[in-house]
């Protein structure tokens, strides 16, 4: 039986939180530094994928559908390895871990976020579009001023759920050496050999973030009320 010593967490707290979680320090890393741009860019690409899925033109709709079906049938770990090997070949230059991880997350999550956007747009009643057309708005104007604002409201619960998933997934960037919270805990553990305490601690940190996100989502859902 081993005695637990949570002092190890306290002694390495600056490294775990400032380097691992926030991303400031000697290494390129940071869970937040990866998660925030990944969420923003993934959502932007997701909107295009979602709109593409609903396009009346088959040459837009089919590739978008294929994109979604492909990435939803493949593990994220696989996509990260794809990017890790293929980006230097295609771009003919070395890509830092941050770029590889960000590209993998944005491309992968856009497939899931695109489905949420599609469902959100489809949840807006058809009559709204007809009414907008009847008062003389163009297709793009209808989308921009009538459909998307209402769709966005309906999407919020599933969107936040997916953002939580993405936030948790950033831990996988550590497998290509990105110094996020998980990798930082690994590094500290290699020196201290206190796996139970360290991994439990980062589990709690992840949990605090994801749980507060889900509480906020529930709050938003209640405030906005049913569509």
């Amino acid at each position: 039986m081993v005695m637990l010593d949570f002092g190890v967490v306290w002694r390495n707290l600056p490294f775990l939180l400032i380097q691992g979680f926030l991303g400031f320090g000697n290494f390129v890393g940071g869970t937040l530094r990866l998660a925030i741009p990944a969420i923003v860019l993934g959502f932007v690409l997701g909107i295009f994928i979602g709109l593409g899925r609903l396009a009346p033109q088959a040459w837009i709709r089919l590739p978008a559908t294929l994109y979604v079906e492909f990435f939803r049938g493949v593990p994220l770990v696989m996509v990260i390895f794809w990017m890790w090997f293929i980006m230097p070949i295609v771009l003919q230059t070395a890509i830092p871990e941050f770029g590889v991880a960000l590209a993998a997350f944005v491309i992968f999550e856009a497939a899931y976020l695109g489905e949420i956007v599609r469902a959100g747009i489809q949840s807006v009643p058809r009559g709204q579009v007809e009414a907008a057309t009847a008062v003389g708005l163009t297709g793009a104007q209808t989308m921009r001023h009538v459909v998307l604002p209402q769709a966005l409201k309906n999407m919020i619960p599933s969107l936040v759920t997916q953002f939580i998933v993405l936030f948790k997934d950033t831990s996988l960037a550590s497998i290509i050496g990105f110094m996020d919270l998980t990798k930082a805990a690994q590094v500290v553990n290699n020196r201290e050999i206190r796996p139970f305490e360290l991994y439990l601690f980062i589990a709690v940190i992840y949990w605090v973030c994801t749980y507060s996100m889900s509480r906020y989502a529930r709050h938003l859902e209640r405030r906005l009320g049913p569509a």
Partner: protein
Amino acid sequence: MKYQFNWSVLWSGQSGQWLLSGLILTLELSVLAWLMAVVLGTVAGAFRTAPWKPLRAVATFYVEFFRNVPLLVWMFFWYFGVPPLLPRALQDWVFAHSLEFWAAVCALGVYSGARFSEVLRSGIQSIPRTLIEASVASGLTVAQAYRHVILPIALRLIIPPATSESLNLLKNSSVALTISVAELTFQTRQIETYTAKAIEALTAGTLVYLVLCVTIASIMGWVERRTAIPGLITGGRGESR
């Protein structure tokens, strides 16, 4: 740096054998973790509706804590963190019987169990209470009402989200490569390491996952259509990963 394709690495040497053994291990890991997840998910779901508060608290803690922490952290936790705390005899046994595999089963099973319990809960909640009242009013006992009315509907409602959650479990099993379980993704990396042909190796691994997922999804789609109750719209969608 021009990439030279050489697809023959996939059928020469040991590649085929590695892929096959990786696929088998992925399936073994997923099936065991799935069974564990279903049991844990059902128990947690039942506890969450129990009339005794401590039981509800334990189940809520389990679901909220385990599904909100990355699977990778759980892999490390079960592989590195838990074994040193086990009693000596059990420690010797797991070290002699592929510790990494059982750690991965526990990590994946416990994590997915928390997610399954949410699927079950929302499935059961979507059944109107009036249905059980109507059944009892028409002379069925509560057990009969569950057996003949509630469960047949609940199970059908659960099929689509449970399928997508099961596919998530299958895809998530790839995270086990981080604790050196020689599953499909691990073997794909192994082919890449031996042949230095990354694109070919990744294509092979990716195709195997795609075929697995598409096959399971189609079978479950067929089951869903076959068992559909006419007139009852089942619109449940699973939460992704």
